């Protein structure tokens, strides 16, 4: 390929968005590992990664608060790109084609497709749920303010939300492995025009300046 034909790369995430994302990712991994350690005895050995059971118990909630704060910033930055548009309903109807790698049968996606938007709102719900139930469970500081039934309910819901969150992130990570050229958006900040054309055509069109669509 000669130099003239080399595609100009398209910026998808700024440096600070990428740093923000990876802080969330690292804290999430820490939380998932420490949380699983306290969830099921089969994972208790994971407490060794955090310096033992007591340190796992001490660190988990603080890391959780850090993740929530970083996530809140991330959400504010990406919120307007994730609002549902009319074409998203159509996209979801064809999600089977997406899974069969027949993306050509799907309507054009904006900056985010309907699946990504669903994940976005699911994560907002789960993060909020985990924060609130986690505070109720935080014995050192907050549990004393709540009735015992509240602590029991929070413990159950915390496990449920965490389970759903881990499943959601498994989907998120897999999507990055599956759709080649996606990960570099979050590591280098850029994607190739062909990637944008193939997966987020409406976004590319918008970047080019045609068909203004502020909902991305």
């Amino acid at each position, binding site marked *: 390929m000669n130099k003239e034909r080399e595609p100009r790369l398209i910026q998808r995430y700024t440096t600070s968005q990428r740093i923000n994302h990876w802080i969330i990712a690292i804290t999430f991994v820490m939380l998932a590992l420490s949380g699983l350690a306290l*969830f099921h005895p089969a994972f208790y050995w994971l407490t060794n990664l955090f310096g033992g059971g007591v340190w796992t118990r001490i660190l988990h909630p603080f890391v959780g608060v850090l993740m929530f704060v970083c996530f809140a910033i991330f959400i504010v930055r990406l919120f307007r790109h994730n609002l549902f548009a009319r074409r998203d309903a159509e996209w979801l109807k064809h999600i089977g084609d997406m*899974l069969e790698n027949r993306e050509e049968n799907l309507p054009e996606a904006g900056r985010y497709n309907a699946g990504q938007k669903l994940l976005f709102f699911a994560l907002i719900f789960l993060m909020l749920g985990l924060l609130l139930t986690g505070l109720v469970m935080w014995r050192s500081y907050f549990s004393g303010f709540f009735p015992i039934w509240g602590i*029991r309910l929070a413990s159950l819901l915390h496990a449920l939300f965490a389970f759903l969150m881990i499943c959601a992130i*498994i989907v998120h990570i897999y999507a990055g492995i599956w*759709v080649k050229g996606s990960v570099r958006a979050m590591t280098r900040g850029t994607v190739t025009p*062909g990637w944008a054309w193939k997966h987020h055509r409406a976004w590319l*069109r918008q970047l080019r300046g045609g068909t203004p669509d502020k909902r991305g």
Partner: protein
Amino acid sequence: MSLQSLDIKRRSATTTPPPSVRGEVIGGGVAKLIDTTKCIGCKACQVACMEWNDLRDEIGSNVGVYDNPADLTDQSWTVMRFSEYENPAGDLEWLIRKDGCMHCEDPGCLKACPSPGAIVQYNNGIVDFHEEHCIGCGYCITGCPFDVPRISKKDSKAYKCTLCSDRVAVGQEPACVKTCPTGAIVFGTKEDMKKHADDRIVDLKSRGFDNAGLYDPAGVGGTHVMYVLHHADKPGLYNDLPKEPRISPMVGLWKGITKPLGTAAMALAVLTGFFHYIRSGPIETDEEDERKAREMIDE
């Protein structure tokens, strides 16, 4: 507390059987029977507990009732609860209940505990905390149907009555039993204690306490600390002793089916992704896509 590794029936956060070579204990294990009808509220049991276990709670202040200290703490593993009850005849009854761990046959604390071996149940039924394995999460408090465990502010470990497991292990009765001046607290095998309670209940009924009975709640599989109550039909009179205690369904769900089911579902999610990749492969961007993208940009 103790080192009877061959006498463990249940172990927290452990999915394989504990050492069980010795088999069942005769007599249904041990039990402490607290006869509230004989209790005079002298608190000698509290003192004996402090002395044997070498605990010194903070000197508190009078809060207007006889309860002293006002609640169980990491330093006070047993507390006399005083209730003033005006019976239907218009007479005052002073109901005194020695509160503390009930040593449930199906212990909610042990079920909830995430740390392997931090809570054990011995073959004799005693539920004991091994504080060196305690991580201080407080799940035992969440799991307990009787609101007994307390986390120390000093070391963030959970503490409660051990039923003097160290004394029992060498053939002695618990310190509170040893000291009780009226014989309101007795100790033996669970079967013997039930028989003893039966005699007491017959006596109480003959004295007009028609509802006298034994408190050995079936919802937690029975307890290894039992009460003789004058009003067994209304345990709530005794400082809110629960009528039908059981491990909360929320705790049961959280610590029951959720754990294997959730773990399996997460593993399945990963496997689904893996086999999707094996079946359908990745979505890649090729030269054709780049060309079409350029066309769109150059339009």
